[in-house]
């Protein structure tokens, strides 16, 4: 799955619904699907709320890539925003990243060449089909 969507709040459920479609088609266990959808929702919300603060002009984009094989799922959420700069006026509780970290098997944050951020989330995603057969 590869999506490029506007970095707006309305895109957050769009990404989640697309990802759910992919995971359900792959017959991933429902509990695992729920965790993946929560983590990816949190990562996308972080982009919308933090990545492009103070930037004027066109609505910027966020990019979501998901790859799944047998028992392993990786989701990348990428922006071209302000990178890891700390923010003293953060509007949220700051719970997004801790929640993502708790839900993922492996979490990596990288600055991209353009100065944005890439969040790489890996999950153990066992399919019902694989585990029962």
């Amino acid at each position, binding site marked *: 799955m590869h999506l490029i969507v506007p970095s707006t*709040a*309305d895109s*957050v*459920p769009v990404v*989640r*619904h697309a990802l*759910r479609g992919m995971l359900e088609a792959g017959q991933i266990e*429902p*509990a695992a699907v*729920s*965790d993946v*959808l*929560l983590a990816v*929702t*949190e990562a*996308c*919300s972080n982009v*919308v*709320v933090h990545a492009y603060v103070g930037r004027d002009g066109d609505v910027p984009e966020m990019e979501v890539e998901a790859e799944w094989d047998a028992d392993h799922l990786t989701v990348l959420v990428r922006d071209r925003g302000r990178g890891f700069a700390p923010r003293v006026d953060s*509007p*949220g*509780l700051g*719970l*997004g990243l*801790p*929640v993502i970290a*708790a*839900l993922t098997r492996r979490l990596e944050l990288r600055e991209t060449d353009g100065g944005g951020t890439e969040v790489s989330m890996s999950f153990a995603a066992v399919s019902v089909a694989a585990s029962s057969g």
Partner: protein
Amino acid sequence: VSEPGVSVTTESNQTAVVSLTGEHDLSSSGRVRDALETAGRSPVTVLDLTQVEFLDSSILGVVVSAHREAEGAGRRLVLVVGSEPSTSVRRILELTGLSGILEITETRDQAQPDAEGASNGG
């Protein structure tokens, strides 16, 4: 996929109920904030999450703000999650540790003002 629903009803002069249905995230957080603000004029606000299928930390951020405001004003905000909350609701409350900070009950009856005394006194 369920669209996020938000409604506010006043059940008595004591209690206002904010009911959420479907999936809630950053895209509906403004509507949830407005509803909690409207309901917050009552002494008790019940936030009914029993029909919620998805909830993230954006919504919990709004809920925590409303909880702090209610506390400061001597009012209550009570979350009703049902006897079997959706996986998503259970998970986000557990992961954020907010279940120990927010007032959470299974049913709307338990959230009513006279339910506190009843559960303590017998």
